[in-house]
């Protein structure tokens, strides 16, 4: 499969395999995890790719704004499909465009160019060496300058032509080469976000009925217990779904940085084991009470120490309800039971 454009490079990062995923993208013979890198956004702030896209579908592409064909086509086609998707699915997708031509792609130019497709697209810049290293880590051939036959351009940049799609589990299993059509994106993106393509129509219908999508919901302040190194910890929430329809908690994000993942502990297979889950369902008219030994949220790579007595803002994202920011209080392990009791008591008082 040809994986490059604007210069005819080839790349061996992805091999077409028999699709067992139900996706129209090209399956990777060897799925890989989301890389960790930090580059500059077009507003100059740092963008930690793994953290910012955690729990989201991340469509990662390396290109440049002077690209005559592949880059604008990919961006235009993705933007056109996203514009027609229901909010719940669109919100779960991040499109990240890393420039392979940082010399000409100034922050302003990159930002303006991407905003022309979708203001939500993230443009990233960095040193050429850094970007080369990121591409290599993904199995892509680093972009190279090539002479341009067009007198209006000093040079072209040969670069990988595929969009790498990381699922909400932060693993890439499929790529989208040049030639991917809007119809293909419209088929695959709902599946990647967790809903099926068939469900997309139903979701569209739901999103057109805003009164139905907003659930009556109450969330008690979170309780956080730090681990010994204080940069990690466990977080417990209590959420009441008073609506007549199920909702799903699918992401918790610390507002100031850090990574949060949903987990469940179970003894069903013998000793207590913990496993990461993509989401937690909250049935209609029920209470989700996170407790040690059950559902909880793991905090990792926190930018500042989780000191007992301090508080932390957390953004919660649901499949049907709007995202909400709540406060969490850090307690010691010895204080945990009483804090949880207090949490449930404060909740009952509502």
């Amino acid at each position, binding site marked *: 499969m040809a994986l490059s454009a604007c210069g005819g490079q080839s790349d061996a990062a992805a091999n077409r395999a028999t699709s067992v995923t139900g996706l129209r993208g090209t399956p990777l013979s060897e799925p890989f995890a989301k890389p960790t890198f930090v580059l500059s956004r077009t507003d100059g702030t740092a963008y930690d790719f793994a953290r910012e896209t955690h729990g989201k579908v991340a469509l990662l592409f390396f290109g440049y704004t002077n690209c005559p*064909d592949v880059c*604008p*086509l990919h961006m*235009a086609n993705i933007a*056109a499909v996203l514009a027609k998707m229901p909010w719940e699915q669109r919100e779960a997708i991040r499109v990240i465009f890393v420039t392979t031509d940082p010399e000409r792609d100034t922050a302003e130019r990159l930002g303006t160019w991407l905003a022309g497709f979708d203001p939500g697209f993230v443009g990233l810049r960095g040193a050429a060496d850094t970007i080369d290293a990121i591409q290599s880590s993904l199995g892509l051939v680093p972009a190279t300058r090539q002479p341009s036959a067009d007198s209006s351009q000093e040079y072209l940049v040969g670069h990988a032509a595929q969009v790498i799609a990381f699922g909400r589990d932060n693993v890439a299993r499929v790529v989208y080469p040049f030639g991917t*059509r*809007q119809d293909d994106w*419209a088929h695959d993106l709902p599946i990647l976000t967790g809903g099926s393509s068939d469900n997309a129509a139903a979701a569209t219908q739901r999103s057109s009925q805003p009164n139905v999508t907003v659930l009556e919901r109450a969330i008690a302040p979170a309780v956080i217990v730090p681990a010994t190194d204080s940069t990690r910890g466990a977080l417990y929430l209590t959420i009441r779904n008073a609506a007549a329809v199920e909702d799903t908690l699918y992401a918790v994000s610390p507002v100031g940085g850090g990574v949060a993942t949903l987990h469940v502990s179970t003894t069903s297979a013998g000793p207590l084991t913990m496993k990461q889950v993509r989401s937690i369902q909250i049935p209609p008219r029920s209470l989700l009470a996170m407790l040690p030994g059950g559902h909880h949220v793991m905090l990792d790579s926190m930018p500042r120490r989780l000191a007992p007595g301090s508080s932390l803002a957390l953004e919660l994202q649901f499949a049907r309800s709007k995202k909400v920011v709540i406060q969490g209080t850090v307690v010691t392990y010895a204080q945990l039971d009483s804090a949880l009791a207090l949490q449930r008591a404060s909740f009952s008082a509502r």
Partner: protein
Amino acid sequence: MRWWCSAQNTAWTWEWRPYPGVWLFVVAVGVTIWYWNRVGAQRAGRPPAPMHPLSVLGLIVLWLALDWPIGALGAGYLASIHMLQFQLIALIAAPLLLRGLSSDALALLRGESTLARIVTRSTAPLAALVALNVAVLLTHLPGIVDGMMSTQVGSFLIDVIWLLGGLLFWWPIVVPVPERPRFVPALQIGYLVLGLMFSPVMFGVAAFLVYSQHPLFGTYELAPPIGALTSKNDHVIAGLLMSVGGSVIAFVALSKIFFDWSKREG
């Protein structure tokens, strides 16, 4: 050098490109009309008449539709220009070219020869109506467009199908057929209304282009973009051109038929 316009995966530039196949084709069509008229005049024992001005105009329209830039843009960049090409070739150039055939030349096609019989049957109004609509349907199916526009031969065939479909469709209107006295002006007007203004095929294609959720033709969806025109909007313009353009051309033609008819009836 390429001989005919076809889809290419290169960015569009306004740099002129020669397409010698187009020049040869237009010259061949012109020579055919000229030679046909000459033979007809010789058979009739009359001196050959010069080319009819409308026929020359038809050749110019045909050349403009096939050559750079319209030909190149329509072959591989914009569905809307592809549709404009169709209208120029099948709906404008074809009737103009037919006006260049002298009555002596047309007389060669009457009689009992095989060619005469084929021409008579294929230019009967119902057959001609069906021929154009089948040509329109086939040459606008996404699989055929995407498969053929990527090659010069495929692109050439689509252009030839349009021209032949247009010639057949306009024949009953433009060419006087003494053997077909029942195709009176009122029927001609109905023929144009059914064939162009309210053609189910043309309206169907136009509706798909305008209302489909995603662009129909991969050739134009994946073509290097030109300006800020999105591929979906390009398809919408193509659909509007097909429905509105065909109706406008039909309206002009049926107006002429109507006023000529009124004049004759006094």
